[in-house]
């Protein structure tokens, strides 16, 4: 068969074919995720939270920081102020909606930042092995030896208390967890025959790492990332609660919670609503992460 004929045939096929290869695998993935109800709910909840965090601030009536009204301070929930007001008379609902974006942002940012570094370190460590591997993994062990929150505390006391530094601190303790998982998966993948086949073809290390190993260890990375977002948010909120993260006027959820602590007996709602917010976020990410793990598990493949 000559090339022209082959070409004609392939264009015909393209018309006939309904789905591209990518679309097929995405559909396959959704089908598997759908079987796990709680994961699906978690997923939708995350999407809903993200939409609220992005769109919400445009619809709130009050300003989260500047609309102080001491006439109505420390009031319980009402039609006017759905989640009540705080000690400056600010609307808690507005603050929570605005805070959602900040909190989620910290979680995503810290995870992405720490994830990228952790994945790179882990792949290099697993792929090259030997001395490089020993040195990198011992460094990771040192990082892992600290309890996460303690490490973050130590880093912030060096860097200074600010939202930006919280993201940096949290992402640094994300590095070893990602590196470990990625290294393990890399070790398992790099000995497969298709990697040898690529080497026999003369592929460079960079090509093998990024085009052949990385896509095949993506599942554990995605699962770890979705679970780590929850951890990151919890740590960041915890740090803000301790006064080391977001500083007072900022409506970060942990910071609101921290404000509310002083009025726990008189106006419990100030702490209650941001607390509930944090809880729902964590629940959504954890459930979704667990479901993802099941859906992406190769052993579940038929």
């Amino acid at each position, binding site marked *: 068969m000559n090339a022209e004929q*082959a070409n004609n045939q392939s264009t015909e096929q393209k018309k006939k074919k309904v789905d591209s290869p990518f679309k097929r695998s995405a559909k396959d993935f959704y089908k598997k995720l759908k079987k796990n109800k709680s994961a699906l709910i978690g997923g939708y909840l995350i999407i809903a939270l993200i939409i609220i965090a992005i769109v919400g601030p445009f619809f709130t009536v009050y300003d989260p920081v500047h609309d102080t009204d001491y006439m109505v301070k420390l009031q319980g929930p009402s039609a006017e102020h759905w989640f009540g007001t705080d000690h400056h008379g600010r609307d808690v609902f507005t603050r929570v909606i605005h805070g959602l974006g900040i909190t989620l942002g910290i979680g995503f940012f810290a995870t992405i930042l720490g994830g990228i570094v952790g994945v790179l370190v882990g792949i290099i460590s697993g792929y090259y092995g030997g001395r490089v591997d020993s040195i990198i993994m011992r460094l990771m062990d040192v990082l892992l030896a600290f309890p996460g929150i303690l490490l973050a505390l130590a880093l912030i006391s060096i860097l200074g208390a600010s939202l930006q530094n919280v993201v940096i601190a949290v992402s640094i303790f994300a590095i070893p967890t990602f590196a470990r998982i990625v290294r393990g998966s890399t070790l398992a993948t790099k000995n497969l025959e298709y990697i040898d086949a690529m080497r026999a073809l003369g592929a460079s290390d960079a090509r093998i790492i990024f085009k052949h190993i990385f896509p095949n260890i993506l599942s554990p990375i995605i699962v770890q990332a979705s679970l780590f977002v929850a951890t990151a948010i919890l740590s960041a909120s915890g740090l803000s609660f301790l006064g080391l993260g977001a500083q007072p006027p900022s409506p970060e959820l942990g910071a609101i919670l921290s404000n509310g602590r002083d009025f726990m007996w008189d106006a419990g709602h100030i702490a209650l609503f941001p607390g509930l917010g944090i809880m729902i976020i964590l629940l959504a990410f954890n459930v979704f992460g667990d479901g993802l793990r099941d859906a992406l598990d190769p052993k579940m493949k038929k």
Partner: protein
Amino acid sequence: MAQKELLKVNHLKQYFPIKGGFFGRTVNHVKAVDDVSFEIYEGETLSVVGESGCGKSTTGRAILRLDDPTEGTIEFDGEDLLSLSKREMRNRRKDIQVIFQDPYASLNPRQTVAKILTEAMEIQNVVPKNKRRERAIELLETVGLNAEQIDRYPHEFSGGQRQRVGIARALAVEPKLIVCDEAVSALDVSVQAQVLNLLKKLQREFNLTFLFIAHDLGVVRHISDRVAVMYLGKVVEIADKKSLFENPQHPYTKALLSAIPTPDPENKKERIVLKGDVPSPIDPPTGCRFHTRCPFATDLCKQDIPELRNLDHMEEGHRAACHHIEKIVSGDMKPNY
């Protein structure tokens, strides 16, 4: 044989270190391949047979430079591959390709067939970019698959079809030598035959040279021109297919051949059953490696390593590594079972 030597392996040794102790010192070596020499002529199929662990796959991997051999030279087209730098080797890899045993592990599960084939061409830059897809379709048809299967993922194929994709990938860079590392062992018998016939057809069409690593003697008999028998990291006998199967000289080859099942129950052959197991390649026996299990072994075998020899009663190119070939042939030595 007046053919041109395409590949010449000289005194190849591959020792893998065993790390142990507190500081990861090298405590010992696995002598996977220990002083192996052979040559492959252009356009022929040389089979390497032997039990598992005898170093046949390691030899193949060394030729592909997937592992770095400890000693020896591998001359391809007159050029020593082991002396090339990584970068020079990368360009040479175009000429030597590989087909692996496990069709389920040898294709990247995240790539479609089109991607697998075009990437091979991309790495070696063999076909202009806009022609690569056409060439991929052509390759698929050469190996007996349909053009419309090009956008499928490996898991959408059967084992035999995957192996065909693996073959197409190897062909994509137009190699001269293909190392088939147990290329059909993982397939069921009917598919084995199809793939073997495909390989034979491709060999004729593209003037390919095969190094065929196998343990199935039936398959070896079907595909090879010449056969090398390996035992514990050494070649014990090498000959053209006919001489080896009809007139084996080395006691190990004889034992190996006697294990081929015969389809006729009336015609029972004498089965040579060897004593014991293959010794460990970490601490191989002195002298002839086979002397611990050989029915003809003498004190000489324990001391001296036998060389590959060609004797008068053997065909040209037929060589065996045994001290006692003459006495065994003349009947002076009887096996002592």
